[in-house]
């Protein structure tokens, strides 16, 4: 009996002291937090990916609440993972109207695959793009393109980017990518860009066009290093009806805000440096077929003309140079 009593008293006393301590500590170190922060955080995906620019979802929630109190609007704050749905939810939690943003996606701006970009040296250090990039210009003649050691793959928390072993380049998974930008930050060559997912928001499958190269070398140098390089010839710029393409430092850039994904530039590009998603490519195929047909027609006509000229030349030897020019034309196109 005595034993039980002692045990009870002892345990009770320990419990009492412990709870008192806990109470005091909790009181002493209490930090007030806006209850809305918790609510907003709840609504956020909880991936803590940092895609919004804050260290985690809590930071984002805090920033949202502060932005609401300070400006009455969320401004640039956007959760790329949750997208418009989550932002709408957050806005309504804070009693605001949601402003929709276009969905985005990571785009790899290099298409120098193993065949088109021959190796000139071998990197033999730790398997990291950052280390390779800091060591030397690169394994290939192109000092701008993808290093191919997969720092982006390691950085991705959503299993959305993988190395394609055939091309040696990373590929983005359309479905899984949330455009958090972790891969773009991890890439030492800045090959990955976060772009608007689709030129038409309503399209069932994403329609987008981008220059899959960031080589700023002069055309000939770039071409020597990589068959698929953008040589800055400016053909795409001329063919674009929407004024979406600029060529600067021997490199074309397509403004995704202006681009309507018509596919004209893709068909025009002599090196195949401009890439597009499948629905656009279907259009491009048609354009190319038409172009080929046109070219064939032109050639036929040219041949005809040449024959006529030849016949004329036989009569009078004057128009020789014309024939030469015509013969040159298809050759130039091939290059």
């Amino acid at each position, binding site marked *: 009996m005595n034993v039980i009593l002692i045990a009870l008293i002892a345990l009770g006393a320990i419990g009492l002291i412990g709870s008192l301590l806990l109470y005091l500590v909790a009181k002493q170190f209490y930090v007030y937090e806006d209850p809305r922060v918790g609510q907003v955080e709840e609504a956020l995906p909880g991936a803590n990916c940092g895609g919004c620019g804050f260290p985690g979802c809590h930071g984002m929630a805090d920033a949202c609440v502060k932005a609401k109190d300070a400006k009455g609007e969320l401004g640039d704050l956007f959760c790329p993972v949750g997208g418009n749905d989550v932002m709408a939810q957050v806005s309504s939690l804070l009693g605001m109207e949601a402003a929709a943003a276009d969905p985005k996606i990571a785009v790899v701006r290099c298409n120098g695959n193993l065949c088109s970009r021959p*190796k000139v040296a071998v990197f033999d250090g730790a398997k990291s793009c950052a280390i390779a990039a800091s060591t030397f210009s690169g394994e290939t003649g192109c000092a701008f393109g993808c290093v191919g050691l997969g720092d982006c793959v390691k950085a991705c928390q959503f299993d959305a980017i993988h190395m394609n072993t055939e091309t040696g380049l990373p590929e983005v998974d359309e479905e899984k990518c949330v455009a958090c930008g972790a891969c773009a930050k991890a890439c030492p060559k800045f090959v990955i860009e976060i772009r608007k997912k689709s030129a038409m928001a309503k399209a069932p499958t994403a329609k987008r066009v981008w220059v899959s190269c960031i080589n700023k070398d002069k055309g000939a140098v770039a071409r020597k290093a990589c068959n698929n390089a953008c040589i800055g010839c400016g053909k795409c710029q001329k063919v674009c009806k929407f004024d979406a393409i600029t060529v600067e430092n021997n490199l074309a850039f397509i403004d995704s805000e202006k681009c309507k994904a018509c596919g004209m530039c893709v068909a025009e590009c002599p090196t195949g440096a401009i890439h597009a998603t499948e629905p656009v490519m279907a259009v491009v195929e048609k354009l190319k077929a038409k172009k080929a047909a046109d070219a064939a027609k032109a050639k036929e006509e040219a041949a005809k003309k040449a024959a006529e000229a030849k016949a004329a030349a036989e009569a009078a030897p004057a128009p020789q140079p014309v024939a030469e020019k015509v013969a040159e034309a298809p050759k130039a196109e091939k290059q």
Partner: protein
Amino acid sequence: MLNVSLSPHVHSGNSTRKCMAQVLVALVPALLWSFYQFGIGALIVTLSSVAFCVLFEFLITRFLLKTPTTVGDLSAIVTGVLLAFNVPSNIDIWILAIGALFAIGVAKMSFGGLGCNIFNPALAGRIFLLIAYPVQMTTWPTEAGYADVATGATPLALIGQYVNGADVTIPSIVDCLVGNTGGSLGEVSAIALLLGGCYLLFRKTITWHIPVSVLLSAFVFGFLFFGFDAKLAVEELLCGGMMLGAIFMATDYVSSPMNSRGQLLYGVCIGFLTMVIRRYGAYPEGMSFAIFIMNAFTPLINKYVKPQRFGVVKK
């Protein structure tokens, strides 16, 4: 095509495998003495222990982890030999198998393999067996052979009884030095183990910090705890697992601290704990427990004990 990497472009040529091979070479003198002292039993136990360790590591990497096998780095062989060194030479093979499974499977591979284990695998195996099979693990043969050999107390137990006032004769220092006593397979000959230690120091496989600090601190605390008797303190150093522990078990790369200051602290603590357990604990032998305990403290030592920095003056 040229290779490109960051500097340095040359390497010392050292490898994990070479380090392990050096340890194996250093274990040879003690192994030879054990063959002489315990005969066929030592051979059977050592060979089967190595075989079990290698087998388990191979099976685990091949079928459980499905990774390239790591048997080639020889660390499993070192574990096998050290485990054999820590058991009596007449131990049953099936007990040895369990010990090897615990050492490799639990203490090493479940933590992630060589380099990630917190505890010295051979030591963990020995302690597991000591607790699980105390009778078999403390029945020491005193003569050569495997089955049905005469058994007796180890010098450590005798010293313990002697200190507590029993009328026993303790073995002479010379016997302890040479290894003419009973005990675990590989621990008996202090000279053979010291020879191995010298080889390791010569090859720079280990540094002096751990062995010296362990032995020195064990001597000092032995002297204090065993009634200021220098002879007893020396015997404590020469008997039991002290030499084996100080030279081969405590210096295990993975489970010991990184820098020399940490190693000195680690060694002193091992010496102290060993002597506390030997003198005041229930077990006559405290070396393995002392190392085991300090293995657990290694991450903490690594965190708080930093090496001597260049260009930093203490204020």
